[in-house]
């Protein structure tokens, strides 16, 4: 049932539709030229499977995969209306399969010239490594939709970094559901950057299912104009000695709004586990709004767990300090926001992607613009934070440990 990625990649690409191909190729070119990112695969809403790929189209039919979902305890249509919607409407499934001991680095471009409804299945074998970066862009001329399900299984001792950059235009509404199951001693870094889109709704379930499984989830939301973000992430410690760290940050300007809901679920059979939910927000405009609601359910007493939340307007004294050294108001805001996100940036290991995200943020803070591809620059953006530091270190309860 599983399709090796290399084989699959040869058979999927920009749609046959002439205008579609042009738009997809132009965005690929922009990403390559301006940011140095070359997406290996482009998936767009009007994707057509060529004749040569027909066998795969049948093999990847969602109805045929449904039994596999159940056997792997993956998402089913009962999980949410969004999942059911995607199951019914998705035209294709992208399956990424890294064999045991294998290693893969993959850049994907998702382009919603037409509504994009798709599923991404990821299977990372024992001891395998995967660095996956996904870029969501759009060239839509009318109101559009991106609707994607991710389902990932990380087998024992595997190591995965997933980066998702959401940079669709102001006509695009986005809905994402992700479920990641992490096996024994496997490790997940899951970095999401929410920059574009009119309204983005996200539901993530990250489950540390195996012994000593680790997950570190980093969410960065940068809002402007009237953008809306509803980010709902649940981290689960479902076995002993598991670690879950969820860090969500938002910088909201103009009339943008954001809801961050992080929830830690530490189950009874997870002694020796650690879980942390950390939510922070800066408001850069009087009309900007952010709600941050961390929560926890702890069913074992032998755990370390804590949550924190803070949202505040940008500090006037900090702005004054920076401006007293010659930084303009925009530069000072940029400095503060880049400092705010620096620890989060540091977790992205792909240098080109890090630079790309920095450029998006710079564009957003200076002009409020999103949905286009800015020229890459790290100027004024720093990632000084130690990427290996644990957020437990910063918590007063565990400072001496």
């Amino acid at each position, binding site marked *: 049932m599983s399709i090796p990625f290399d084989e699959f990649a040869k058979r999927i690409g920009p749609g046959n539709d002439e205008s579609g191909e042009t738009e997809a190729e132009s965005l690929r070119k922009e990403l390559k030229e301006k940011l140095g990112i070359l997406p290996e695969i482009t998936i767009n809403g009007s994707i057509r499977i060529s004749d040569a790929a027909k066998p795969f189209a049948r093999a990847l039919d969602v109805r045929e995969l449904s039994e596999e979902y159940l056997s792997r305890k993956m998402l089913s249509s009962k999980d949410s209306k969004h999942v059911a919607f995607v199951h019914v409407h998705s035209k294709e499934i992208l399956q990424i399969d890294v064999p045991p001991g294998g290693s893969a680095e993959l850049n994907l471009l998702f382009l919603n010239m037409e509504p994009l409804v798709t599923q991404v299945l990821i299977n990372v074998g024992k001891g395998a490594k995967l660095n996956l970066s996904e870029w969501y862009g759009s060239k839509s001329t009318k109101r559009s939709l991106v609707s994607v399900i991710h389902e990932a299984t990380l087998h024992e001792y595997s190591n995965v970094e997933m980066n998702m950059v959401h940079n669709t235009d102001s006509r695009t509404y986005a809905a994402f559901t992700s479920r990641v199951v992490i096996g024994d001693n496997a490790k997940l870094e899951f970095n999401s950057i929410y920059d574009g889109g009119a309204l983005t709704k996200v539901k993530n379930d990250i489950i540390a299912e195996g012994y000593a499984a680790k997950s570190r989830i980093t969410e960065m939301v940068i809002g402007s104009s009237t953008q809306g973000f509803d980010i709902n992430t649940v981290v689960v410690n479902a076995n002993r000695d598991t670690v879950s760290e969820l860090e969500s940050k938002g910088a909201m300007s103009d009339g943008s709004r954001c809801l961050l809901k992080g929830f830690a679920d530490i189950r009874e059979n997870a002694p020796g586990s650690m879980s942390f939910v950390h939510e922070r927000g800066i408001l850069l405009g009087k009309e900007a709004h952010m709600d941050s609601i961390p929560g926890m359910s702890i069913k074992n007493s032998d755990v370390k767990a804590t949550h924190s939340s803070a949202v505040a307007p940008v500090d006037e004294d900090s*702005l004054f*300090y920076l401006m007293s*050294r010659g*930084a303009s108001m925009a530069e000072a805001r940029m400095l*503060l926001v880049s400092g705010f996100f620096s620890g989060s940036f540091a977790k992205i290991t792909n240098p080109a992607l890090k630079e790309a995200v920095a450029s998006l943020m710079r564009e957003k803070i200076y002009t409020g613009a999103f949905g286009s591809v800015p020229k890459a620059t790290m100027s004024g953006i*720093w990632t000084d934070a130690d990427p290996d530091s644990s957020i437990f270190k910063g918590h007063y309860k565990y400072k001496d440990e």
Partner: protein
Amino acid sequence: MALEINDIYVSTREGKEIVKGVSLKIKEGEFHVIMGPNGSGKTTLAKAIMGYPGLKITSGRIMFNGEDITALTPDKRARLGIFLQFQNPIEIEGVGFVNFLRAAKESVSNSTVDMKQLMAEIKTGVGSLSITNGIVGRSLNHGFSGGEKKKAEILQMSVLKPKIALLDEPDSGLDIDAIKVVAENINEVARKEKTGLLVITHYNRILTYMKPEFVHIMSDGRIIAEGKHELIEKLEKEGYDSFLNSKGKPNTTVVNDGKV
């Protein structure tokens, strides 16, 4: 080159008047010191000169080289060459000290900074100021001790080379040796760059290493006495009460070397 403060009145955003008619003129290379009891308006005056948005200048003007800068934003004042050393420098996590200083230097000099040269300047400053834990790789003032923060401010001053430096209690929180080191570094920058200095302090100790030419005593938002070094000696012996009458109001303004 001169900074002129002409009879300014400064209020908080809530309308409380803090500075009540202060005039000062600081020329290139001059060294002024302001002393005064807590709450007399010294820090507010320095912040108002730098353009702190939480303060309102309700009357009077601030001139720099004949140009009215009363309405300028802090960054524009910094680019003209005015520098404020903060009494309590702000900690900004995630913004690297060196990168910040590079950005600041580029802003005030309006040119691209040669990083090699900047690093050499920082290295020299770190050595000269005896900053033992180093600066490189650390966030701006984040996790710095009180002394390190003060020294880091002076290091910024030495790199930015301002024309006028407003130093708000550069000695507070420093040990005896550190006060001497900081004073010597301020002297060195002022000598090399002909920087006009306005130092706010509570204590005479730092002034044993520096030689102010003009001493101003401030109380209740006003300058109540002006003179030279002798004024400090009078203050040291008799305290601020000697400048105030029984109702807490200032006596006759003292001029001419501290003599009434």
